[in-house]
Structure formats: structure tokens, C-alpha cells
């Protein structure tokens, strides 16, 4: 059992509070992604769970046992660092076997487990090289291998793919997800990339300025963002936000308490001028092949991004009418909270 639970965790550096009361439960075997902008405290939270940072207040337990005061080595978790942090003076073989050696495992058993991990990650040919002789992707594999060789209760990943090329990133993403299935271990994965979060997570934790904004499945975050921050952070391209007044004026059904209205680009139909609730002029366009995104300048001066997935091309300066799908309107109060 390796469920992780965090209760009112605070972390301050000097007089700067970096984590402002985190409460979180991660179920056994779950793949949880921490996502948020750079500097929001993702790495700090991960390092607190790992035990690399002492926490200022609160508690952490792993597998039902409180570990708040335990050193990292006693927590039974492995971590993969963004920089890989391989041991430069050791071969890949010794990098992989390092933790087992510390645990005084017998040599034949170390060799056997290292060989198995090397096979899983397809790095058998690299065992006698040193980190300096490896490519970025190979180093990444070794770093992951070093984590799984110990068969830990839980894995922590801090932006493990951010130093890789786009191609390799997608490939490694799939391999990590497959690894998660095979090991059925608890994994916490940090990224600033919401696409990575959406595609990999069982559960996403959205962090902002040291607080959790929302916890949920990718679909929950997409369809029911709890506030304006999550609404605009999750989804690519980002959700359009307009004032509730403008929406009411256009005849949309909007509650009295609503201050802001959100609508995703994929939930707006685009047609002839005068055919919808908003009229505007096509401005910037992005053609991605399957989809096209049109930034439509509305007559009141605001702008809506609209997705169109058919083959009809609109040209810049064309007059169009827009019809938001009423079932997908997100309404937010003045302080940004979701209204339902």
C-alpha cells in the first residue's frame, strides 16, 4: 500500500511562504500530475514529499505511516530529477545498482536486477558507458531505470521530459504510461505542460502560487473548472473569457451572479454574418491541418478564438457570425469562482 496523504502542508523559505496549506490524497497506484506555471511550488511540493525539504508545518504520510520527520531514504520512494542527476563517475551499470549496493544486497542479486531493468528500458548496450557518453534520451532512461530498480512504493518525477526533443518527449510519455501500468505503482509527475498533464494523468492537481486550485480527472478539469484560473489554464488553446454583461446583451442565458463568462474555442459555431449572437471580422488565423483557429474581432472590440474542423477556409477580414453552444458556457462570479 502506498497511498500518500498530505495535510495542511506549509513551506516557507525565510519569510516567503512558497506552499500555503496543501491538502491532498493520492490513492495507491494512481498516476497524479502536478501542473502549474513555473514558480508555483510544484518542485517544492514534490521535494517535501520526497523528504529533501523539511516542511514548516503540516504532515505527510505514505502507505498509512506518518513520514513527516523521516529522512528520504526511509520513505520508500524514488525520484527522477529534471536534470537526470546521474552519477558522473560511475558506469550506467553502477548508476543502476547504486541503491541496491547501499542496501547491501548481494552482488549476484544486484546484477540480476540491473539486467532486468536494463532489459525493460532497452539500455542493455549502454551498461558499460558513463553518463557523459549518453544522449539526452538515453540519460533519461538510465535515470528512470535507477528509480525502478529499487521497486519503490512510489515514484516522483520532476519535469522528467522537459530537456528532450518534442518527438522523444511524446515517445517517453507513452513509455512512462506503459511503465505505470506494468508496475502499478503510485506515481506523482510534475510538469508545467498542461498537454502532458491532460494526456498522462488519472488525476490532475492544478497549483497556483502555492495553493491547490483544483484536483480532478482531466475531463473534470476540462468540463467543470472550479474557477477562472483552472478554466484558462487547462485546455489548449485557452478558453475565451468575456464579460457577463456583453454575453447578456448578446442574448445568452447567463445567471444574475455571473461576472465573467468562459467559452472554449471548440464550443463556438462559426457561420455567416448575422447568423449568430455575435458578429465580427476574422483576424489572425492558425491552420493546424485538421483544425483551424480563427481569432475573430467582435464589433465591441473584444476577441474570440474559434475552432473550425471542416474544410471550409475563412480569409482574413471576412465578416462572420458566432454562436456559442449554450450547453458549454462556464459562468464565474466576481472573485472567479465557478457558478453552477
Amino acid at each position, binding site marked *: 500500500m502506498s497511498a500518500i496523504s498530505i495535510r495542511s502542508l506549509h513551506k516557507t523559505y525565510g519569510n516567503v511562504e512558497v506552499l500555503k496549506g496543501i491538502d491532498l490524497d493520492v490513492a495507491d497506484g494512481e498516476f497524479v500530475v502536478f501542473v502549474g506555471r513555473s514558480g508555483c511550488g510544484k518542485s517544492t511540493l514534490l521535494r517535501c514529499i520526497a523528504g529533501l525539504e523539511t516542511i514548516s508545518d503540516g504532515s505527510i504520510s505514505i502507505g498509512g505511516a506518518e513520514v513527516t520527520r523521516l529522512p528520504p531514504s526511509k520513505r520508500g520512494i524514488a525520484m527522477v530529477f529534471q536534470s537526470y542527476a*546521474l*552519477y558522473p*563517475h560511475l558506469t550506467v551499470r553502477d548508476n543502476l545498482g547504486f541503491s541496491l549496493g*547501499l542496501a547491501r544486497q548481494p552482488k549476484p542479486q544486484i546484477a540480476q536486477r540491473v539486467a532486468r531493468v536494463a532489459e525493460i528500458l532497452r539500455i542493455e548496450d549502454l551498461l558499460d558507458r558513463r553518463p557523459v557518453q*549518453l544522449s539526452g534520451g538515453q540519460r533519461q532512461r538510465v535515470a528512470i531505470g535507477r528509480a525502478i530498480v*529499487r521497486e519503490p512504493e512510489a515514484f516522483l518525477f520532476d519535469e522528467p521530459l522537459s530537456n528532450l526533443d518534442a518527438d522523444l518527449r511524446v515517445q517517453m510519455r507513452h513509455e512512462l504510461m506503459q511503465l505505470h501500468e506494468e508496475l502499478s505503482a503510485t506515481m506523482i509527475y510534475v510538469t508545467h505542460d498542461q498537454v502532458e498533464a491532460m494526456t498522462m494523468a488519472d488525476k490532475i492537481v492544478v497549483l497556483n502560487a502555492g495553493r491547490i486550485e483544483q484536483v480532478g480527472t482531466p475531463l473534470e478539469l476540462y468540463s467543470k473548472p472550479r474557477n477562472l484560473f483552472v478554466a484558462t489554464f487547462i485546455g489548449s488553446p485557452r478558453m475565451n473569457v468575456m464579460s457577463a454583461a456583453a454575453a447578456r446583451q448578446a442574448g445568452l442565458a447567463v445567471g444574475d451572479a455571473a461576472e465573467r463568462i468562459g467559452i472554449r474555442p471548440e464550443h463556438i459555431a462559426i457561420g455567416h454574418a448575422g447568423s449568430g449572437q455575435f458578429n465580427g471580422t476574422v483576424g489572425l488565423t492558425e491552420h493546424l491541418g485538421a483544425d483551424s483557429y480563427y481569432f475573430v474581432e467582435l464589433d465591441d472590440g473584444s476577441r474570440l478564438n474559434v475552432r473550425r474542423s471542416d474544410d471550409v477556409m475563412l480569409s482574413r477580414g471576412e465578416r462572420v457570425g458566432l454562436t456559442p453552444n449554450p450547453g458549454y458556457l462556464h459562468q464565474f462570479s466576481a472573485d472567479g469562482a465557478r457558478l453552477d
Partner: protein
Amino acid sequence: MSAPPSTRPLHPGQRVAVGGILVLMTLFAGFPLLWVLLTSLKPNNAILSKDPIFLFQPTLEHWERVLFTSDFLKFYLNSLIIAAATVTIVMVVATLAAYALARYPMRASKDISFFIISQRMMPPVAVVLPIFLIASNIGMLDRLETLIAINVAFNIPLSIWMIRGFIEGTSREIEEAAVMDGASWLGAFWRVTVPQIWPGLLSTALFVYIYTVNEFLFASILSGTNARPVSAAVALFLPTGVRGTLFGEAAVAAILIMLPGIIFAALMQRHLVAGVSLGAVKG
């Protein structure tokens, strides 16, 4: 991370020029050593000849005198004990202090570092008298421990400063990885960072060794006949009395004094393989 040195092949002309310069530099550095070695083997009349003599009947009389009839070996042993103890203590203390300063930054880190290095700004001669008086009062004159303590005190600041630089050049995250792998913090430093800065540690140790072996001021003032190291004792071989200066014996002493340092440096050369830490972090 610095780029690897260029490996572009040289023009033949450049090769000759570079080779010539290297040969000149080697001769320049090596000739005095050769001359000392020859002198140690020359009979006295050849040493005192006005013309440089390269061909002579070699003799071991100077070696014999130094090794068997003088007190040289006693002084030599003193020097080796003082140097070995100083190097050991300095390296252990300075490495741990440097680790703390490099890895546990606190508000006072800068001040502590400056205080440490400022100890080096004071000329030793300024404290000779007080130290002599203290040592005399507590009955510590002419003892190896006193000279070891003095040398440790004078070498620790610069050593901390140097080693801190080496440690800061390594990645803290690699130590953290070792901690996640089950090591203690100090264990991670020892197993992961020390191997990376090994060349730096060895060169620091060599500095300390050379300083200690050459230290003359305190050696001559704080030691008498018992704890006297070679640096202060070598003057014994250069009396300008009726027998004249004993250049042959001085040459033998010089060779023996140089020997451990040269052996140490030769062993160390193997470890000065640059770039062991390249590629450990980042892509």
C-alpha cells in the same frame, strides 16, 4: 559547462614551434634538478671547480654523510610527520567545513567565508612573537604537535576556500539523487561528490604539503634540536666555517626533501583526468 578543447590538428610549422617551446620549458625547469643531482654525486674538487663539469668520477660520499653520519634523517622524519599530520587534519576539516559552506547556505555564510579567508591576509611574522610566548608558557616549545597545529591553522583557510569552489562546481541534485537512493547526506557527499572533486582535493593536499615542508619561520623559532624539521635544519649543512660550504650534502638534502612531493605529484597525475563530471546533468 565549458566546450571541450578543440582538437583541430596543427600545421607542421606550428607543431615544430610548439614542440620547441615545450622542450625549452622542460630544460629550463629540469636543468636545476639535473644540476642538483650531479652535484650530489660529485667529489668536492669537481663541485668547487670554476668551470661547469659534467664528466667526473661519481662518489656517494655526500649521500653517506647525510644519511649515516648526520642527524638529517631525524629532521627529515620530523618534516614528514609534520607534513603528513598537517595534510590529513587540514583535508578532513577543510573538506567538511567547505561542504557545510557550499551546501547549507545561511545568512552568515558570506561573513564566515570572508572571516576564514581574512585569516590568510595576516602576515605570519605578525604573530610569531605572541605564539612563541604562548608556546613557551604552556611548555609546548620544540614539539611536533606545536608545529602541526601552526601549520594546520595557516593552511585551513585557503584550503576551505579552494575546496568550497570545487564543491560548488558540482551538482547538488546528484547528491540528492544519492540520498533518494538511500544514502545519508554526508554519505552522498562522500560517495558521489568527493569522487568528482578528487583531482581538486589532491591538488589542495599538494599545496598544503608543499607549504608545510617549506615552512621556515615557525619551524626555526618554535623548534629546538628535538622537533626541528628539515626546512629549518638544512642550514646546518651550509656552515661557512673552515670546511667551506657543504654543497654536496646540501644537494643530497634537497633531493630527499623534494622526493615525496614529486612522488605525490606523479601519482596524482593519473587522477587529473578532466571532465569526469561532464554530462551528468542536463542534456
